[in-house]
């Protein structure tokens, strides 16, 4: 009896959690299928399937261009972050040098500043580099928040790899570069997938930098583009379009997480238990 009760309790808790997490997305999907004044009626079940919002977002702004921008930026951020973090992790996790701990905590410290605090300084940097209203500026600025955690996570993993493997590689005459790319990188696959995915999501969803460092519609990434979707007049907020756009840009993330799901779990738990 007790087992049945506790089972039921667990099920109820799981359902409650799922509803809490998924309801906003569900409501966005629901809203995206509505149009006109129906948008302002609260419904919990789909009453009609009107796909006109999904058609309109492509027509009224360069939405395809925005998605392409986001893909470009997020992918570049992931590739650059992982490449830099992997090499940094080798130095921080495997090479003994003075000030290593200090450096590690400095890197962590960088991620403690709120984005707003670095915004104006970063704006100057980007202007000086000539990257204003340019995707390069976004890639550069996003690494401010992706690098600290990619470096930290990969350093932790790197440190846990057995020293003997590296020593065996040294005895085999392998250069540090070959050791990192051909021996360590394959072993860190799950960790790299996990951190890469998190970096991708962070870059994909970033709003403040994207808003500040871009000017024209053609350079915007999706979060900004969606926020700046306007209606026919300034008194109209086209919720249908906004929700349709949101749903469209969420789908790739869900697909990515599902595709890498198994490796992601392996990466998040690997190293916790030996073996």
């Amino acid at each position: 009896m007790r087992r049945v009760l506790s089972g039921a309790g667990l099920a109820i808790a799981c359902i409650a959690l799922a509803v809490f997490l998924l309801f906003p997305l569900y409501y966005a999907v629901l809203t995206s299928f509505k149009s006109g004044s129906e948008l302002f009626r609260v419904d919990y079940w789909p009453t009609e399937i009107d796909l006109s919002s999904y058609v309109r977002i492509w027509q009224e702004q360069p939405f395809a261009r925005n998605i392409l921008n986001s893909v470009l930026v997020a992918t570049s951020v992931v590739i650059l972050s992982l490449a830099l973090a992997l090499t940094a992790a080798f130095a921080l996790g495997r090479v003994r040098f003075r000030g290593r701990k200090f450096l590690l905590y400095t890197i962590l410290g960088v991620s403690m500043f709120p984005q707003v605090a670095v915004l104006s300084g970063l704006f100057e940097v980007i202007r000086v580099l000539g990257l204003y209203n340019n995707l390069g500026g976004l890639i550069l600025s996003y690494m401010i928040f992706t690098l600290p955690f990619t470096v930290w996570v990969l350093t932790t993993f790197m440190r846990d790899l057995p020293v003997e493997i590296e020593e065996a590689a040294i005895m085999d005459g392998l250069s540090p570069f070959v050791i990192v790319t051909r021996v360590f990188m394959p072993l860190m696959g799950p960790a790299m997938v996990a951190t890469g995915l998190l970096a991708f999501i962070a870059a994909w969803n970033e709003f403040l930098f994207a808003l500040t460092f871009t000017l024209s519609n053609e350079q915007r990434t999706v979060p900004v583009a969606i926020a700046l979707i306007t209606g026919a007049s300034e008194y109209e907020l086209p919720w249908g379009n906004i929700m349709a756009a949101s749903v469209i840009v969420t789908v790739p993330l869900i697909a990515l997480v599902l595709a890498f799901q198994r490796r992601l779990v392996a990466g998040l738990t690997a190293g916790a238990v030996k073996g």
Partner: protein
Amino acid sequence: MAGVRLDNVTKRFGGTEVIRSIDLDIADGELLVFVGPSGCGKSTILRLIAGLEEVTSGTIWIGGKDVTHLPPARRGVSMVFQSYALYPHMDAYKNIAFGLQMSGTGGETVDQRVRRVADMLQIGGLLHRKPRELSGGQRQRVAIARAIVREPQVFLFDEPLSNLDAALRAQTRLEIARLHDELKATMIYVTHDQLEAMTLADRIVLLNAGRIEQAGQPTELYRRPATRFAAEFIGSPKMNIVPVQVEAGEAILPSGDRLQVATQRGGPADLGVRPENIALTRAGEPNALSARVLHVEELGESRIIHAALRNGTALAVRHPADSPTPRKGEEIALRPDPDRLHLFNRDGLRML
């Protein structure tokens, strides 16, 4: 192939001196075993020779060339690690071949060399397997193959058998000996197991606290230990050590018994006698010690009798299994072989 020479090699980690000015000549083709208790510096010496650690002072020569400041790969050595240290994501073939491939050796040569070495170690059928699909013994063979394939001048083994179970350890030990015969290579082997050292070595170097305690052939260390430490480390069960007073060619035991010893010097000393050099005898014989049996250990081929002299001094005696054995509590007489007595002075150095 080449010999190895250590010239006044010292290694300090921070303030602690781990290796203290060691001089050693290792001949071409010799199988030399460093043995000693944990923390004696034996693994550090191996890592210094390998180049994984840098010496604090001193010179290391391999094949007549000063390699003190050369990186490991250019010293002509290869190493087998205790934990095998195979690349987990590569199959056995790739593990063996990887170093060669990366050093730019031609594909066909690599393949020939890998297959020859794999045959030598009888792992030809396992080459496509990943390390996790191999047993401990097979992994160790792959690790040894990886060391051999580079055709080094010197092989370094860092406790290669300690992760294997007892049966496999004995078998792999034999195989390493066979490999040494076959390759005629210089091998330097580190172990904490005196049995491994005794069975494998051409020459044993016993280390204690970063110094060479004694170097010599296994039988030499066994028969004429230079120090009390060496006497106790080599041999199982351990040599019996009894504090004695030496006077006029006799050693007086704490029990009051007297044993004749061939020395003219006097004073306090430690008398050593191996369990296998003590025989049961009849009471009243010259040099017989009366004792009481405390416990008998069965080893199959022999038994170890743990006995106590009148004052409680404990002695272990190896007794052949096929002769009648006294029981616990029985009174017996023991006769140490007078030609196999060892005397050490208070500094632990051999007097006799």
